[in-house]
């Protein structure tokens, strides 16, 4: 069991807690292969999926995870709730708390929204992605896949390529992987690299590298993680055109071949085919993109169980 009320980010959780989540996920993975995919572990618990941003896989993944543990799962999305009537996050939080929810999974476009919610509610808060801050459950499921495929989380070379500036997935992965002593290479055009990023893991900076050369990032990599270009967050010009973006930062077969022969290609989805990743790579033999999705359910079951189980 995790000795904490919330899961707000990877930055402030320990290696031991991460390993406990991954080990627990291993045992839950089997549940999803049974004919009756359900265990009674969280019967009587109420989980609210509070999504202020569009999401298919994270929301569905949490919903399935909750239901396989026999919890009651309620989905609230911004367009259908009082939020569109101008209710503040604070009032929404208090309302949900008054209904005695045990857990709220929140996704919000404002970084720190889960922290605000956490201060105001008794329910456990799980960060389902906040602004450009963190997406801890994604990093955990990525770690689950990496450990499964590579047998370890240390002494690897992981290249994270693309829109680092707007990416919460990149930040959570940087925190997680550097905690285990893996070399992480962040790669993007300087316009998409947030200032000071090389120092965000202050005491483990020797594991974090920054480059704008994709060849340098991919060379001999064990894992290549591609990020989606977040057009919806781009109110200004970060690069001249999609064509030019793909020229420098698109993952083609030739580029993928510079990595180790047993490289795995990851992507948190949804994919922009032909923008950051070529179709033949996304669907090719190194791609573990769909494995990530199925691991997502097991990892989220583990997190819900470890936070809410008694």
């Amino acid at each position, binding site marked *: 069991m995790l000795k904490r009320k919330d899961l707000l980010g990877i930055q402030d959780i320990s290696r031991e807690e991460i390993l406990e989540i991954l080990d627990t996920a291993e045992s839950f993975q089997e549940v999803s292969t049974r004919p009756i995919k359900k265990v009674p572990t969280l019967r009587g618990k109420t989980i609210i999926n509070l999504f202020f941003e569009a999401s298919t896989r994270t929301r569905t993944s949490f919903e399935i995870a909750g239901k396989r543990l026999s919890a009651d799962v309620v989905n609230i999305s911004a367009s259908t709730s009082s939020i569109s009537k101008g209710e503040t996050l604070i009032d929404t939080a208090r309302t949900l708390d008054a209904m005695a929810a045990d857990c709220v999974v929140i996704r919000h476009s*404002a*970084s720190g929204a889960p922290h605000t919610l956490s201060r105001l509610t008794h329910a456990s808060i799980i960060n389902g992605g906040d602004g450009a*801050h963190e997406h801890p459950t994604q990093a955990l499921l990525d770690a689950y896949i990496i450990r499964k495929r590579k047998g370890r989380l240390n002494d690897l070379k992981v290249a994270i390529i693309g829109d680092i500036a707007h990416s919460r997935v990149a930040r959570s992965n940087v925190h997680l992987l550097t905690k285990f002593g893996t070399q992480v290479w962040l790669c993007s055009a300087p316009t998409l690299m947030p*200032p*000071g990023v090389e120092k965000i893991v202050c005491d483990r900076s020797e594991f974090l590298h920054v480059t704008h050369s994709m060849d340098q990032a991919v060379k001999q990599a064990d894992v290549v993680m591609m990020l989606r270009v977040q057009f919806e967050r781009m*109110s200004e010009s970060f690069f001249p055109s999609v064509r030019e973006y793909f020229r420098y930062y698109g993952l083609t077969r030739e580029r993928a071949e510079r990595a180790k022969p047993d490289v795995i290609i990851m992507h948190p989805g949804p994919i922009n085919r032909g923008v950051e990743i070529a179709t033949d790579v996304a669907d090719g033999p190194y791609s573990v993109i769909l494995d990530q999705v199925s691991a997502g359910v097991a990892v989220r079951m583990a997190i819900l169980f470890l936070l809410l189980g008694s």
Partner: protein
Amino acid sequence: MDLVVKNGRLVDPARKVDAVADIVIRSGKIQSIGSATVPEIPVFDATGLIVAPGFFDIHVHLREPGTEEAETIATGGSAAVAGGFTAVAAMPNTKPPNDDPSITHYIISEARRSSPARVFPIGAITKEQKGETLAEIGEMFEAGIVGISDDGKPVMDARLFRRALEYAGMFDMPVIQHCEDLHLAKDGVMHEGVYSTRLGLKGIPAAAEETMVSRDLILAEMTGSKYHVAHLSTRRSLERVREAKSRGLRVTAEVTPHHFTLTDSAVADYDTNAKMNPPLRSSDDLAAIVEGISDGTIDAIASDHAPHHVNVKMLEFDRAAFGITGLETAVGLALTKLPLSITRLIELFSINPQKIMKVVPWGLFEGSDADLTILDLNRTWTFDVNQSRSRSRNSPFYGWPMKGKAVGTIVGGKVVFQDRT
């Protein structure tokens, strides 16, 4: 009002005064300074205390007219005197803004009616602070403004800012700029750096301020007008101002207490009371500001008192309003955190602010308005935001221990605040 301020250490660097003496006040003016025995009028015993010319906070937001749920001229004035200020300069970004002499008249008459502190209005540079056309600067000057600013916003249009400098030069009023290139700062909510990247918040780069300071200094030199940098917050801005002063430009600059006490690390955990504009900067910027205060590059400390109702502060960090209150903590923070002589402190809080705004000077001389700030340098205290006289509670200094406090505030010979143990 009649009063004797007895046995205090009188310090007025502008008049080279530093001695223990009594002040006799008759009808709101200083009648004599020396040794006094005037049995028939009340006495303020200042034994062991510093008696200084009244402190003047040249950058406050009183929110009236228009946002009275956050502050009024009366409550802001009350917070001012509780913080040791006998006078404040009120920024024009009210609703409607002070861009018209009728608003100026309203602020002055409401202050006379309800504020224990003197209030000097600052007029807008441009109509509705839109940055498009000049406001009625001359008529507002006649109505009583002491400077012009579009504070809260910069004047982005360099040509218009040149015109503002030229036109204000006619009245020898300072043009006060909130320096922020809005293109560089777009959507930013905190200082751009490691912390903004870690927190996933959009950054306001130091360059947003520095490029505008640089541009403005060139225009100030070209026009020869008085230019004042509001709430300077970065090392490079400071260096530009230092260089301009060394060449004799008529430039002055102020800093806020939060920029010499806090850095961007205070935003961790998304505390919206650490959200203001300009944002809390890096530790290197903070060090530069402390140097600038000591070496004279910085002329004044001003609070940028920006009260906000809880409804616009208790929100997601991105959506929360910029600004914090500061009138009641400014003097305590300066006394606690800055390695300054008392004379330098009084220059920063009283003498220079009076010069920048070119008000009729007050001080420790016969015939002056009896506006005095009385300090206890040894008083230890803790700021309790719930006891604040401001109508708002948005302060990051809640619970901060301090050493040194304004324990008496006298305006026109009247004791408008005292805190005696």
